[in-house]
């Protein structure tokens, strides 16, 4: 089996976000870029499967849609253990555009399992994986928290309200992953970093796609009023405030 992991390059989770161009675009100045946390967990699981001979995974490929600035994030994925990579040379405009570019990658090289994070930590659209599966006309399973392969059968756990479902699915399919799919993301070894430099990274020109949505303005949340402090010796006062002032108890 061959696995494709779709990666998004996102600002580090500790980033304090700022905007520019009269709040029309994200200010990337001084921002550290990382692999989107859910995508990183998907990649980690794909690599674990490849290392287990019983799973029968021959190759793990990563793909991203982004300009040359996203290459450090792709090299990191290769350093962690991905075999090769695609980068579609386009600034992501909206989920529809990104999904179409990724579909083009799958058109060049077929994959059995395509994994995408349930959302990106920057635009939080939760859309690319589902759109990609529909463009490709293959099944998708969302919110998966475990993926195993036994005797060529893919077995998934899908999170549902208050529990989970065990799902069997034929390949090819798109798996949209959330927390739980892998425990900890991996840290690249020195050897991994060295070999990543020579692993194949194909840069593809983008397909022509017109976006269906556009962001016209960004806003930061309103600042909160100061916190009302309550003496730990008079917790009854806290309960009264929650009942009478906040009216939430």
């Amino acid at each position, binding site marked *: 089996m061959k696995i494709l992991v779709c990666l998004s390059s996102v600002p580090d989770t500790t980033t304090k*976000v700022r905007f520019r161009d009269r709040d029309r675009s994200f200010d990337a100045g001084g921002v550290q870029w990382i692999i989107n*946390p859910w995508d990183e967990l998907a990649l980690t699981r794909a690599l674990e499967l490849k290392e287990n001979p019983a799973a029968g995974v021959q190759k793990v490929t990563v793909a991203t849609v982004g300009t040359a600035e996203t290459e450090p994030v792709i090299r990191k994925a290769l350093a962690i253990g991905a075999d090769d990579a695609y980068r579609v040379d386009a600034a992501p405009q909206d989920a529809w555009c990104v999904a179409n570019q990724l579909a083009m990658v799958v058109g060049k090289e077929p994959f059995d399992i395509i994994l995408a994070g349930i959302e990106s930590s920057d635009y939080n659209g939760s859309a690319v994986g589902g759109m990609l599966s529909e463009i490709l006309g293959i099944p998708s399973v969302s919110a998966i928290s475990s993926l195993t392969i036994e005797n060529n059968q893919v077995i998934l756990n899908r999170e549902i309200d208050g*529990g989970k479902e065990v799902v069997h699915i034929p390949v090819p399919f798109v798996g949209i992953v959330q927390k739980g799919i892998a425990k900890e993301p991996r840290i690249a070894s020195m050897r991994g970093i060295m070999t990543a430099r020579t692993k194949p990274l194909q840069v593809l020109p983008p397909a022509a796609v017109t976006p269906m949505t556009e962001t016209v303005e960004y806003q*930061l949340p309103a600042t909160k009023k100061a916190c009302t*402090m309550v003496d*730990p010796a008079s917790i009854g006062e806290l*309960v009264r405030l929650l009942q009478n002032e906040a009216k939430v108890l």
Partner: protein
Amino acid sequence: MSVLVFAENWDGKFKKQTCELVTYARQMADMLGFPVTVVSIGNVTDEELKTLSRYGADRIVKISGEQYKILDNQSCTSAIAQVAEKEQAGVIILAHNNTGKALAPRLSVRLKAGLASGVSSLPASRDNFVVRRKVFSGKAFAAVRISSEKKILTLSQNSFGISEAPKESMVVSFTPKPDRTGIQTEVRDVQKQAGKVILTDAEIVVSGGRGMKSPDNWGPLEELAGILGAALACSRPVSDEGWRPHEEHTGQTGKIIAPNLYMAFGISGAIQHLAGVSSSKCIVAVNTDKNAPIFEAADYGVVGDAHKVLPDLIREIRAARNQ
């Protein structure tokens, strides 16, 4: 044209979030001059379906049948798309939950309808379809314009509220043509914890962090949650350590929640944690460190040890409830 709402059911019943979706759809439909059509998939009684007319549904389309007992993304997409075409849906609204996140992107591609997800406002005006949604995991908002003729939205839970706008609605049955590929996902087993308050539905959430010191100290949090009918949550280190299941992790990479009351015990409030809880209507923080960033996000704070504060809080809430 119409505004179409996908009303998910849980064992044949609707939830508050379904009423919120219909409320939102009603107000949008009034703005656009369209009727509201609701589509339900699965076995729901007409009586239950009719409850949605209280929030402004004009027409309710029901699709029932054994094949829809499980959520198969392809067959549900196909069924909703057929209803959307039949009802000439100009806008389709789903919840921003696991089901909505699974179906909305597929519908967007199938119907060539631009998607805005996690939306929390009505469009700016009839001719300017710009909606507000959360981005950067709650650290900011974006105003997004959908330029396609048909539009799809997923509504952020507990962001709009519920109001009644009763209509005389009728229930009609619809049998979709089977999806061309058939159902390929096969559900082998369902494991559900009965009686547990679901985190994303909860009005009150009781949450613990590393300051709780050990998984053995969760008893008072569970007791408090029990009294308040609250759901339990935790910070990322707690779920990473395996003290609590990852389903309880709230924050940037966990669940993003918006309850009426969020109570954080022993949580310092890292920026990633705050991103997941900052939409809560009221935040209470208990932490030993008076400089902890959680106090910048909190409405009410107690500088103190959660282990000492919790028994007092439980006693005071019990006393207040008994009055």
